Every structure is written in structure tokens, then in C-alpha cells.
């Protein structure tokens, strides 16, 4: 019997929500924004795909040339670490808005991050994450406020309480009914997205469909948490006007302001040096070490080889060769770790900033949803960090071959009060095609869902907490009335 009564309570609440003007207007607004968001996403994706293809073609052309012998001292097309675009970046913008592709293995200039680490998920771009967070977030918050305030003001809540129904059952019926209405809203947005992508005919893949479903489910969780906050606000506010003002303020704070604030706070508390500055330092250190080494080896060469007319026979001087090799190995032994330490420290501080921002993101449902959404789409911090690690590993692999074991060593030999540049040959240059290929980091859907899991867990906790607190507030407001 009780399940039938509960079902009626739920149906009535769902009808009350879905037939309200607020629901209709905000859902229509969300549905109107979906095509705009997807259009922007697909345009960016198409342009980036074209750029990626062009870079890949250049890389392949370079690597197929037998005569291409990279020196490792400059950016070369054959040494590009090109990231594979994820199609779900059309749903949630993030790191895919910029591409990073160049690797200069000498360690002078390294991969550039696509965006400042903390702003990757706070770009404010109009994407599906924005539509759900901002528009449907407002819907959830105001419907939650309505759940209690509307019925309290109209007297319907009193009529319900005068029936043989427990307060818990009334509350549960209201919450479940509200959640169904929210589920309907997010389902409409997800279905519209799928339909539009299907109509374009080129983007919809099973993986993208699953990503949309996962995004919708996470969005639903976020909306339920916002709904709970709305109910909680309604239990604390006596007047409907005050409640509306509180709901709007809460929406501005939670859905609009916290994500950029968290990004700024993370930057303040865990500052990160810009990659450009790090690379500048690395280049300066490299220059210093190299100049010092080539001068030192040049002095050795000058003393051993004699006048410039005898330099051409120096290659056959085994003692000299041994001395220069030893000097070079010493240089590699000291310079390489110091350059790597610079990059490792930069990566570590970025990762620390990401971790700090992630922890802060768990403080509000909107920021947790933003993180979860960008993780699901594969455009967030975790995916970036994996790609960054893969690119650095590739860079290290190249450095092992091109920097640490170069075909020739350039030394500066004293001559008539100046220094002349002499190349001391070691072995023949490696062609590009013999260098290792870049294998990108894994960024498939299961991995992305695992990335999103902590934020989804946070959202679940938020939802339970908000609904639980709002139930206590509901009981308290009824007790106050009595």
C-alpha cells in the first residue's frame, strides 16, 4: 500500500516540477544552448584535427627521409610528440583548445603546456559542462527551493501533513519526484546532444555516446546536490522572496564563482613557475655548461693538436679523443641531471597545484562536477598530466640518443686570441626514422572514468549530505511551525 502512496506522491511532485514555468523556461534555455555548445566544440575539434593531421604529415615526411639527421638542438618536425585528440573534447573544452607538439630533445626548449594548469578546467567556454553547471544548476537549486516553499506558501504541505503520511514519506516523495524532474531535464539535454551529433553524421561514436551518458549521469548527481542545497535554503528561509534571493546568490557563488576562485587560490597557495621561465633557466644553464665545456675541451684540443694546420690529424690522436670523450661524459653526467631536475621540479609543482586544486574542487558541487566532467571528456588535469609525463619520457628517450651521445662534439679552440669552432666527430648521425616513436598516453574512456571517480564520489557525498541536512531542516521547519 505504502509503495502505491509513495508512487502517487512522487508522481504529483514530478508533475508539479515539470509543469512549472521555471522548469520549462530553463530546460528550453539549456536545450537552446546545446547546439551552440556542440557547434563550437565540433568546430574547434575539426580545426585541431586538421592541425594535428598536418603536423603528423610533416613528422612522417621528415622521418621517412633518409637524409634527415636531427641534431637535437632545435625543434624539428620529426621529433614531435603529437597528442591524439579525444573526440569527447567537443563536449567539454579543456586542454584540447591548444595543442602541444614540439619536443626539442637537447633540453633547451621543452613541451609547452597548452594552458596554465589551473585554468584548464575553468575556461568558461560554452560547452555541455557549462550548460549543465550553470543553467541546469540554477534549475536544480530553484526547484529545490520550490519543493518546500511553494507547498508551504500554498498550504499544500499542510494538507499533505494532515494525511496519514509520515513527514519522512512526504519528504522522500518530494525529493524523489524532484530528482525525476531533474533527471528528465538532464536526459533531454543528453538526448538532444546525441541527436545533434547523430545528425552531423561524423562525430557520434559508441565511446562518445558513452561519454555523453556518463556526463549526463554526473550532471544528474550534481543537480541532485544543488537540489538538496535549494531545499536546505528553503528550510532556513521563511519568506519566498528571501528564498529566491538566497537561491540566486547561492547559484552565483556555487555555480559561477567558485571554479575560477579555486583556480586563483590554487595559483596563490601552490604557485607554479611558467614553463617559459623554466625553459629560459634550462637554456641559460645549458649554455653555461656547454660554453664552459667547449672552452675547456677546446683548450685541451689546442694543446694536444698544436697549430691549426695540424688540426685535421687530431681525429687520429687516440689520447686526445679519449680526453675529449671523458670530458663529454663528465659534462653529460653533471649537466643532464641538473636540466632534468629543473623540468622534474616544474612538473612536480604543477602536479602539486593540480592536486591542491582537485582537493579544493571537492568543496563545492559545481567545481567537483567541472572536474568530473573534464575528466570524463579526457580534457582535464589527469589526462594532461599523463600526456605531459609521456611527452617528457619521450623527450628523455631522445635526449639519451641525441644529447648524451651526439654524432659530433663542438668545441671552441683558441686561435690568435679568439676561439674557432671545431666539430669533433664521434660517429655518424642517426636518421630520424631510427629514433623512437612517440607513443601517447592512454586516454581511453575507462581510464577517464577512473579519473572522474573521486569527483563523482565527492558529488555523491555532497548529495547525501545536502539531502540529509535538508531533511533535518524540513523536520525543524515543521517543528517550528507547530
Amino acid at each position, binding site marked *: 500500500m505504502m509503495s*502505491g502512496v509513495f508512487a502517487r506522491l512522487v508522481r504529483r511532485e514530478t508533475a508539479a516540477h515539470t509543469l512549472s514555468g521555471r522548469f520549462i523556461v530553463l530546460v528550453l534555455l539549456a536545450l537552446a544552448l546545446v547546439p551552440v555548445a556542440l557547434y563550437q566544440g565540433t568546430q574547434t575539434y575539426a580545426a585541431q584535427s586538421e592541425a594535428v593531421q598536418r603536423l603528423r604529415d610533416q613528422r612522417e615526411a621528415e622521418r621517412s627521409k633518409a637524409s634527415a639527421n636531427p641534431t637535437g638542438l632545435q625543434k624539428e618536425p620529426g621529433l614531435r610528440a603529437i597528442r591524439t585528440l579525444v573526440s569527447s573534447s567537443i563536449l567539454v573544452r579543456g586542454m584540447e583548445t591548444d595543442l602541444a607538439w614540439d619536443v626539442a630533445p637537447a633540453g633547451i626548449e621543452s613541451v609547452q603546456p597548452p594552458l596554465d594548469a589551473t585554468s584548464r578546467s575553468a575556461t568558461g567556454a560554452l560547452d555541455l559542462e557549462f550548460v549543465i553547471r550553470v543553467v541546469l544548476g540554477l534549475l536544480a537549486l530553484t526547484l529545490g527551493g520550490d519543493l518546500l516553499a511553494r507547498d508551504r506558501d500554498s498550504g499544500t504541505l499542510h494538507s499533505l501533513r494532515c494525511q*496519514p503520511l509520515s513527514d519522512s514519506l512526504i519528504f522522500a516523495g518530494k525529493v524523489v519526484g524532484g530528482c525525476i524532474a531533474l533527471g528528465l531535464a538532464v536526459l533531454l539535454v543528453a538526448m538532444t546532444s546525441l541527436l545533434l551529433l547523430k545528425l552531423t553524421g561524423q562525430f557520434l561514436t559508441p565511446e562518445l555516446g558513452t561519454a555523453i551518458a556518463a556526463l549526463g549521469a554526473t550532471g544528474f548527481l550534481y543537480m541532485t546536490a544543488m537540489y538538496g542545497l535549494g531545499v536546505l535554503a528553503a528550510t532556513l528561509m521563511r519568506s519566498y522572496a528571501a528564498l529566491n534571493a538566497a537561491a540566486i546568490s547561492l547559484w552565483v557563488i556555487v555555480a559561477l564563482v567558485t571554479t575560477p576562485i579555486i583556480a586563483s587560490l590554487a595559483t596563490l597557495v601552490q604557485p607554479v613557475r611558467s614553463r617559459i621561465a623554466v625553459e629560459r633557466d634550462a637554456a641559460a644553464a645549458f649554455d653555461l655548461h656547454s660554453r664552459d665545456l667547449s672552452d675547456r675541451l677546446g683548450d685541451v684540443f689546442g694543446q694536444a693538436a698544436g697549430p691549426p694546420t695540424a688540426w685535421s690529424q687530431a681525429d687520429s690522436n687516440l689520447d686526445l679523443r679519449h680526453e675529449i670523450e671523458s670530458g663529454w661524459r663528465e659534462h653529460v653526467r653533471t649537466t643532464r641531471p641538473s636540466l632534468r631536475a629543473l623540468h622534474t621540479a616544474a612538473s612536480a609543482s604543477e602536479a602539486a597545484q593540480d592536486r591542491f586544486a582537485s582537493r579544493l574542487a571537492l568543496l563545492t558541487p559545481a567545481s567537483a562536477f567541472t572536474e568530473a566532467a573534464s575528466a570524463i571528456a579526457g580534457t582535464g588535469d589527469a589526462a594532461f598530466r599523463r600526456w605531459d609525463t609521456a611527452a617528457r619520457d619521450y623527450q628523455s628517450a631522445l635526449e639519451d640518443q641525441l644529447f648524451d651521445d651526439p654524432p659530433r662534439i663542438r668545441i671552441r679552440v683558441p686561435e690568435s686570441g679568439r676561439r674557432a669552432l671545431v666539430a669533433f666527430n664521434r660517429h655518424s648521425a642517426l636518421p630520424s626514422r631510427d629514433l623512437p616513436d612517440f607513443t601517447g598516453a592512454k586516454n581511453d574512456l575507462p581510464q577517464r572514468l577512473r579519473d572522474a571517480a573521486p569527483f563523482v564520489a565527492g558529488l555523491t557525498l555532497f548529495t547525501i549530505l545536502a539531502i540529509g541536512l535538508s531533511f533535518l531542516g524540513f523536520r525543524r521547519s515543521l517543528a517550528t511551525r507547530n
Partner: protein
Amino acid sequence: MNNAPTHLIEAHALSQWPTGGRIAVEGFDLSVSEGEICAVVGEAGAGKTAILEMLIGVARPSRGRALVLGIDTAVNPIGARRHLTYVSQQAALCEPLTLLGNVAFFAAVGSPGPQRTAVDCENAMRTVGIAERDLRSPLAGLPRHRVIAAWLAVALLRDTPVVILDDPSRGVSGQDSLQLIESVGELRRRGKTVLMATGDALFAGQLANRIVILKAGRKIAERRGSEVFGMSVAKLYLDYAGRVPTRVPS
């Protein structure tokens, strides 16, 4: 042995002292037998609604007990409410539903009986005088007596032995008032026990076979059965309502 309670509604020294020290209800006693229509008459603020809400278990008494079919409404409010239909002063219905939808909704959520069909609901609504054109009409703009009648239809469908009405005649006048009296009369014909609170002594006089006069939270007069017959309830009310409650007449 028959353990059925003699009185379907009982109040024993029912008191409510809301915060702030003001007395809402003080030592209210009442016993309503099966089939009786009892009216609690008093001006606004006399404590009528407070008494009814304690009787249905929505509000807790500060002292005393309220029983419906022998069930203490403070201890088991939901159990007590299964045996009664309460029509609040606001008589609020659910906005997105039609009148018929509301009758079906409240009849279903309020009673454990078998599922009522739309035809059952329509018949009950016709019985209490709701016109065909109003059956499926939206709530907006419906006159109050139609809304009260819809609640009476809910009472018929739920078939509870007790019906409690809070100021049903408020804002209802003329022909509509007569229709309402006819509708409440239908409950009497079906043997329901009715307790109503009203500020309208004339309305009470048309229906009740027991009158209780309430002033400032205290019962100041009570007339039963044959005492009510033929007397002017309005006069009774005016006689007592103007006095300081020094004693309760026997």
C-alpha cells in the same frame, strides 16, 4: 466483547501553550459520539484550529490527550489519521492537478482501501454537488465552496468514520452556503461523525447536534442533542462570546 470506543473523538484537558506565554488552548474537554455532528464555535483566534490540529496529531498538546477511535493522536498520529479525513482551513489542493486529480490523489494517499477509479471519484464529486463542468477544471479560479466540496468527496471516497472540518463556511455565502450544508448533510446521512470548527454560528446551527462555544482557548458553553434543536445558536454564541469565561455552564 465489544471494545469499540464509545466516543470517536475525545479531548481530555487539552492545552496548548505556544512559545511566548500566550495561551492558545486551556483545559479543553470534548467527547463526540458516533454519528454526531459537533460544531466548535468561536471567533478568530479563539483556538479552534489549534484544537483540531491537536486532535489530528499535527500539533502536539502541551498537556492533556486527544483520542480518535481510542488512538492517542500524540502517540500514533498516523494511525489516528487513517480513521479521519481532515479539511484544513486553507483546504489547499495541489496546483498542477485538476479538481478530479486532486480528489483521486488525496483519496489514494489518505486511505489504505482499494484503488478508486476515476468513475468512483466522479460519482463522489457529483454526490457532494460538484457540477460536471468543474470535475476536470484546473484549480485556478475555483470558488472556495467547490474546493471544500472536493474535500468532502475525498471523505466519502476514503469512507473514514470521522470527518473534521476547519471553518468550512469561511468565505462561502448564499446559495453556495446552502449547497455546502447539503454536502455536509450527506456525511451525516452516511453515519459519519463530524467535528467542525467555525466562526459562523448560523452555519453551525444548520448542521450540528452539538455546539461548543470557545473563547480565548477555553470552552465556555456546550449544548447537546435536543438542547440544540430549535434554539438560536447565534443567540447562544452571542450570549457567551461576549462574557468573560468564569464558569462552564452545565
